């Protein structure tokens, strides 16, 4: 049978839930494409658990043909760490926004980094609290107008944009993988995410990838302005690249939590 041309979605995308729930031009779709390609490339669909946060990431709760758990705002990493500690054979992906990662969930990020938890964390940095309608995020650029900085972010009063990968890189033990990519360079981003997944699979340590991403809805930008803000303003503040690679530490660590009692 001749099959008509079909969308080139990653195999692990769930076509039944497409078009997905993100807005037109939302970077989440691009990040999840990179993640999908990486999962495909590693052939780990059957043992990957995807966790999404509250924030626009929650809209991906039925995005993949992956066992998925949509958690609370900022709590995705603990839930997935809980899973990983219980079933180390699984590959866990913790997917969230900058607010979930750097504000309400910062204690979990810091602690997972210092514990070198075997989890791959992907943070979508769109400089705003998108889900709640565009308030200031820890990543909002100086002078940027948001719903809670209506006159532009005043760095004297509210500080400077959080540098997430830099923070993780400063405290994570050897074996960590830390990088910042961008939806403006999907191939590189996929590459980083794939390395991040491998780092977990090889038991080296935490993997942390921030993705610079777009939110045309809350930025109130058209396509051209969206790219400009992302590629010019954001990239100038948040340098793209790898901050930590795990070569320092040999692959190894695999912990087992054996089953007890009358389990199936």
């Amino acid at each position, binding site marked *: 049978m001749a099959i008509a041309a079909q969308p080139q979605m990653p195999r692990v995308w769930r076509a039944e839930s497409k078009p997905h729930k993100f807005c037109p031009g939302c970077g989440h779709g691009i990040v999840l494409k990179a993640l999908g390609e990486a999962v495909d490339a590693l052939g780990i669909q059957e043992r990957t658990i995807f966790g999404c946060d509250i924030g626009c990431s929650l809209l991906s709760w039925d995005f993949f043909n992956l066992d998925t758990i949509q958690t609370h705002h900022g*709590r995705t990493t603990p839930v997935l760490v809980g899973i990983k500690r219980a079933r180390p054979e699984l590959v866990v992906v913790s997917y969230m926004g900058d607010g979930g990662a750097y504000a309400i969930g910062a204690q979990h990020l810091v602690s997972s980094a210092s514990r070198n938890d075997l989890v791959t964390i992907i943070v979508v940095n769109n400089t705003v609290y998108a889900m709640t309608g565009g308030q200031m995020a820890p990543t909002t650029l100086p002078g940027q107008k948001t719903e809670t900085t209506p006159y532009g972010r005043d760095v004297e009063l509210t500080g400077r944009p959080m540098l997430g990968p830099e923070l993780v890189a400063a405290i994570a033990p050897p074996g960590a993988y830390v990088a910042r990519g961008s939806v403006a360079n999907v191939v590189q981003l996929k590459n980083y995410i794939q390395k991040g997944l491998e780092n977990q699979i090889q038991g080296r340590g935490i993997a942390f990838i921030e993705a610079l991403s777009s939110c045309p809805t809350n930025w109130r930008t058209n396509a051209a302005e969206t790219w400009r803000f992302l590629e010019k303003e954001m990239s100038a503040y948040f340098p793209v690249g790898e901050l930590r690679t795990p070569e320092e530490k040999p692959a190894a660590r695999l912990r087992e939590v*054996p089953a007890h009692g009358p389990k199936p």
Partner: protein
Amino acid sequence: MATKPITGEQRAFMTGNEVVAWAALAAGADIMYGYPITPQNEIMHYWTRMAPKYERAFLQTEDEISAGFTTVGGVLAGKRAFTATAGPGNVLMQEAMAMAEMMRLPTVVVVTQRGGPSTATVIYSQQELNLTCFGGNGEGLRIVYSPASHDELFTYVIKAFNSAWKYRFPTFVLGDGYQSKMREPVTLFDPEERGINMEVCRPMVGLPGLPGEERDPAHLRNTYNLEDELYQVLTDSIREYEAMASEVAEWDAWSADEAEVLVIAHGVVSRAARAAVEALRQGGVQAGYFRSITLRPFPVDALRPLASRARHLLVVESAYGQLQRLVQASLYGLETPVSGYLRPGMGITPEEVARAVHSLI
């Protein structure tokens, strides 16, 4: 496989925290997640000492929020997972428990109540009843056991795992600082040898088979777009909760029929209540004793007829009316007068209870 932690019946003299650790081992708990707080700490201390010997796991988290959510992760992965906390830690734990309540996750939490509100004391109280039964932004679809002795602590920790996994409601064992820290004799046993079958723990994620091809992927969420979707989910849960309530509710009563004063208590305070009632009976006072072993669901069917035939009800608790409110709400419609002997954060002795009873007659 590791050897069994307990074979046969073993009599011991130990603290309640040690009892909890042994009970979790005996129940086949796979992993404990926890954050230190007095008076719960020694549960973790014993667990970390014994866990490696029996191939169990432990994770010390960064706070109780994380302890709650990693526990959620553990049960999602299909493991018999638990945590323990108290006081302000119990307050923080509610966020994860609200999620467990919504998603019907069989988490098990041991609470060792301490003085409240706020940091208050590290000692003792019964002030976390309301929090444990109804904490979070929901309707309290939870199972809460309130044990009164080390023997019960052992039994109900084991039972908590089974109730959680059978009914899929977050389950709590509501102890207190006295029970945690006191030593008394206890009999430890292997549940299997007593004919207690541990419920099978089925994973909710990480199932076998390629998702989307060999099976549907698990897509678990706690967020809904429409009021009606949420209402449907809640209505189903409420129905199932109410259906299991009479099966799960437990209580204890002694000389409770036609009592002149029916003393109502829970947890460790019920020991003083019972001792007082025994002494009063010996002294010719027609006192009775009723104790709620499950606080959620509340054993209203058992209490109502006894309360209706009593002349006075006396609620005794180390809190300011938390049990009393539950009793009054449950018994609404009766006319038997209720009084409270309410001592937030204070231990209660049989003598005090007896005095309170006397003041009613």
